[in-house]
Every structure is written in C-alpha cells, then in structure tokens.
C-alpha cells in the first residue's frame, strides 16, 4: 500500500515539476507551451488528489509541499498570460493572501482577533522602504526576512498583554494601534519620511543568474510586473506551506484547544500565555511579510495606505473567505486581487461618476455589507459554505 501511495505521489510531483520546467523554458513565446504546461499541471493536481487520503495519513508534510508547489505552479503559469495590470493585481492579491493566512491562524488557533494587521503590514512595508534607502544591494530574501522579523518584534511587544486578555480587549487594543499608526510613523519621521512616505531608490529587478537562465528573450522577467507577481506567488507558496505545517503541528493542535476550551487546555498542560503570544506574533510577522511585498510591487510606501481602513478590509476578506482556515485565506487573497477590477466594472455598469462620492465609497459599502451578512448568515465564510455543500453532496 505504502509503495503504491509513494509512486502516485511521485507521479504527481514529477508532473508538477515537468509543468514548471516546460512553461519556464518555452513561455517566452508560444501559447502552446502555456496550454501544455497548464494541462500537465492540472494532471499533477489530479494525481495528487487521487492519492490524497492515503498520502495525507502517511506523508502529511510531503502532501502539503506538493499542494503548495502545484498552487504556485498554476499561479505562475497564469502570470505569463495576463496583462501587466492584472499581474500587478495578482502580486498585490498574493501578498494579501499571506496577511490573511496570518490573521486566519490567529483566529483559527486561539480564537482571538486583531483589528491592527493593516498597521503590522505597514511595519513590514516601512522596514523594506527604510532598508532599501540605506542598503540597496541586499538580496531580496534577506530584505523579506528582515521585514518579517521586524513585524514579529512589534507584534511581540503589542502581544504581551494578550497573555491576560480576552477577545474584545485585544481587538480594542489592536484597533487603537491601527488608528495610531500614522501618528507613530510621524514620531519617527526622520526615518519614515513622515506624511509623504518613502520611494525606493530603484525598481526591484530580477537577479542576474535567474534572468540569464531564462535567456535574453525571456519577456516575463524583463517586465517587472510579471516578475514581481511571480516572486509574490512563490513567497506566498512558502508561507502557505509553513502555515499548513504549523496548523497541523503540536503547537497548532494545542492552540486549537485553547480556542475551543482554554480551561481544558490549561488542565492538559498547555501554557495559555505562551500560546496566545505565539499566535499573535506569527500573525503580525505574516502581515509584515505581506506589507514588504507591497512595497516591492509599488516601488514606494505611503503611510496613507496603511490606515485603519486597510485593517478593516483585511478583516472583511478573511471573514468572507472563511476565518480560521487556510483555504479561506487564499480565497480572500483571490477576491482582493480581483476586487478593484470588479468594482470599477460595477461603477461603469451602474453608470456612476467614477470621481463621485458614491463610486469612491462603493468598496467600503460592499465589503462592509458582505462582512455583516457573512458573520450573521454564514460565519465560516465561503470556505465553510463549500465544505458544507461538499459534505451534503457526498452524503447524497
């Protein structure tokens, strides 16, 4: 049995890798390559899905790695075919998915909620801005890690009271942080540039070795939007893989017990303060990583981006997608990637003046309304609805 499972897994993995390679080598021109790559990747997904129940039991980590690779693979293939605007939206959405993963973990594992993750994104975004200002030649990976660590540190400080707090108090505290973030940036205006923010000295370009591997004609790497979208997607894949493992780990299980019954958790030896602070810190670190990617994509960072409204938007996305779950976070990221386009389409369709009051507030009204409706009628969001429907369908 184990051998059969292993070989199926091997086939799935191999097909996915083949897909990546084919697309990578031929993508510069032909549409056929993309179609081929997509097909093979879908096959890979299929092979993986077929062997899932058994593989999940025997090799959970490999399964998660495989799923992450396939998701990344499909998304990267997508970026080769769409326009620059769409690519920038994809990059923004992928980074947002990382933020949502962090918030989903906080809620799914400890039952707490943060209204300040927009400000934690700002911490990461400004870390990249400040660092790039001083050391433009640092490798991308190092910059991203730095931003993540900065977010984790700020999260740790703000999370300390979380050891003794219950839901509403923590939510209120993070709200105060989100509202205060602009003023805090102003306190350190010599670093953060005050109200005007920071501009990166030069656009992020693909590393030379990677660009040369794809050959001089590789249009996907020379146009920065596609390249940045791919970077965002790959980073999202890594974040997704780590988060899936964290959810399933001993720490993750202990945290879910804290969420469901904190007294029972304490009785079996889980340290409540530690579990809560860890959850909060991880969510802040993920938010900072997402914010760091935003700075790279936008080539600049402005304090007005990271206001209170962003924190509410993050909450809306994660609740609509399905709070406390990994698929919910991914769905939320996809919604965000397409929301700007959808709202401008709606504005045009309703015949609204694009510069008018109503059009500029449409996203707030829609997101807020969906947020209220979701929490009242379908508290587990789209992911919960899909899971529910799937179970009913299987029972027949």
């Amino acid at each position, binding site marked *: 049995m184990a051998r059969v499972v292993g070989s199926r897994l091997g086939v799935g993995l191999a097909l996915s890798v083949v897909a990546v390679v084919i697309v990578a080598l031929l993508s510069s021109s032909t549409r056929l390559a993309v179609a081929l790559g997509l097909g093979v990747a879908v096959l890979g997904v299929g092979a993986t899905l077929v062997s899932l129940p058994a593989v999940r039991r025997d090799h959970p980590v490999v399964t998660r790695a495989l799923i992450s690779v396939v998701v990344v693979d499909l998304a990267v293939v997508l970026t080769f075919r769409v326009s620059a605007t769409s690519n920038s939206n994809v990059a923004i959405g992928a980074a947002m998915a990382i933020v949502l993963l962090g918030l989903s973990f906080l809620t799914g594992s400890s039952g707490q909620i943060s209204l300040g993750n927009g400000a934690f994104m700002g911490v990461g975004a400004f870390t990249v801005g400040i660092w790039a200002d001083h050391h433009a030649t640092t490798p991308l990976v190092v910059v991203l890690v730095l931003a993540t660590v900065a977010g984790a540190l700020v999260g740790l400080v703000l999370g300390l009271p979380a050891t003794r*707090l219950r839901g509403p*108090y923590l*939510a209120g505290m993070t709200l105060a942080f989100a509202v*205060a973030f602009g003023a805090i940036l102003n306190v350190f205006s010599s670093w953060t540039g005050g109200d005007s923010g920071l501009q990166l000295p030069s656009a992020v370009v693909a590393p030379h070795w990677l660009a040369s591997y794809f050959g001089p004609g590789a249009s996907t790497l020379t146009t920065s939007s596609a390249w940045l979208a791919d970077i965002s997607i790959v980073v999202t894949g890594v974040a997704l893989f780590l988060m899936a493992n964290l959810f399933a780990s001993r720490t993750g299980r202990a945290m879910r017990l804290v969420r469901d019954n904190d007294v029972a958790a304490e009785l079996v030896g889980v340290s409540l303060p530690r579990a809560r602070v860890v959850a909060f810190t991880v969510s802040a670190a993920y938010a900072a990583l997402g914010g760091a990617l935003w700075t790279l994509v936008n080539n600049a960072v402005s304090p007005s981006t990271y206001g209170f409204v962003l924190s509410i938007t993050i909450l809306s996305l994660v609740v609509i997608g399905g709070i406390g779950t990994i698929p919910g976070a991914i769905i939320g990221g996809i919604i965000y990637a397409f929301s700007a386009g959808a709202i401008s389409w709606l504005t045009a369709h309703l015949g609204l003046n694009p510069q008018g009051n109503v059009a500029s*507030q449409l996203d707030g009204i829609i997101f807020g*309304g969906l947020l209220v409706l979701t929490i009242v009628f379908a508290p587990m969001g789209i992911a919960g609805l899909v899971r529910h429907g799937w179970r009913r369908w299987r029972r027949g």
Partner: protein
Amino acid sequence: MDSFLTSRNVSDLLGGVTSGVIYALVALSLVLIWRSTRMLNFAQGAMAVFATYIGFAILAPSTNYWVSMAVAILAGLVLGGVTERVLVRPLYGKPEINPIVAMVGLLLVLESIAAAIWSTSSRALATPFSIVDWQLNHKPVALSPFALYEIITSLVVMAIVAGLFQYTKLGLQLRAAALAPEVSRLLGVRVGRMLTVGWMLSTAVGAVTAVLVASNFFTGLTPSGMDGVFAFGFIAAAIGGLDSPVGAMVSGLALGVVFQFVGDYVNSNAIILVALAMLIVSLMVRPNGIFTRSAQRRV
C-alpha cells in the same frame, strides 16, 4: 491670581478637562453596552457620527442648533434600537469574535454610506457659543464659552444616566437584566427590551458626544472623525474597567488631562504612544481595569 489662571499648567488642565469629558462620554457609552450585552461596540463612533449627520446635514443649515441636537439624539435612539434588534440580537450566544466582526462591518458600512451621501470633506457646524477663549489681562484663559458648555453638557448627560440607573424603575430593571438575566426574566423584567433600551441609551450618549466633537475640535464633522476619539475613549474605558461606569468616566477625564500635558511638554505625536503604553501596562497589571473588583471567570 490672574497670572495663575493663564499659566501654562492651568491652561493644560483646562484643555485636558475639555477633551477629557469627551473621552469620558465615549467610555460611558461603551460601558453601557458592555454591561448589558458583553459586547464592545466598535461601531459606536460611526453610529454617533451618522446620527450627527442626520441632525445637522439633512436639516437646512439655518435650522436652530438645539433642534438639530434633538434630532441627532433622536436619530441615535432609533439607530441604537434598530441595530440591537436587527444586527446584534442574532449574535447572542455566538463566539465572542462574531459580534466584534459584525460591529466592525457596521462601522465600515456606516462610514462609507455617510461619505457617499455627504462626502468626506469636513463640514463646519454652527455653534451656539463662541469658541474663542476668554481673555484675562490680554492673555487667553484656555477656556471658551463653548468649552464650558461642552463640559457642562457632558456632566449633565453623565448625571442623567447615573440618575436613571440609580433612581428609576427602568434603571433598576436595566441593572437587573444586565446582572442576572435569567432571574430577572423570572421576576417579570422584559430582558430583551432592556437590552434594546441599553443600546438606544448608549447611542444617544454617543450622538451628543459626536455633536460636541464635531463643533469644537478643529476637524469639523467628517465620516471617520470619531475614529481617533473612539480609540481614546476605548483606552479610557479599558483602563477604568469596562464594567465600571464611574471608573470609565474618571479615567476618561484623567486621560484627557494627561494627554494635554504630554502634548504640551513633549509633543502632540507622543500622545498616542503614551496612550498605547498606558493601555498595555494597565491591561497587563489589571486586565479588568483599575476600578473593577477582580472577579474570577467562571468555567
């Protein structure tokens, strides 16, 4: 004596009290809802602003200030009652993050609708009293007729709420419904109705607050104008204890004074850092607030 009244410290104290009463009102409004329904109303500021827009933007600009104020309070009562009946009621007994999320959603919807109808640009409200500070020997005292009116109005609102709770049958029923809903239901208190009344009362207090804020603070009336005030009001309520109306009001007043001194002696950007630090320290030392007797959470 004259120079004492215009001295730096007295000016800070007066300015601090003027903004402190506002934080105290917001804190009181939050405590009213927390005590009865165990929810933190994150839409408090947005609901208050919305009621203020109804009072001051729908009516003609020439409308008498007091009529507008009355309409705003009435709108607050209605908005609070409707919100409790329609949005909050289905959420009783759900996990504690559900009402938080719902209230944040309401906040976003109300602020966006207000901005869609009345635009995000600031609107100056007509004030019944001058906002220019009184002069003493050609030096300003940090108190204007409007600030005095603001302080007195706040104290009157607090006194009305306190009197209502302490001396009326309705107040007794409100307290009973909050403390022991099951027992009070058996004794004939309409608990559901009491919760609605609590929300109406809280939102009406919020409407008065927002009217005062929009007329005196430099920002005027804007859809998101209460966000910052709400944050300070929440900090006051959390430090004083969400269970203690007196604690919330005292700490609101005290915070106003502290912030004024910090703003004057350090700088205005430092205020929010000091506020956050105070909140974090106080929550770590006394998670239930300074004025609340510590109670064990029951399993």
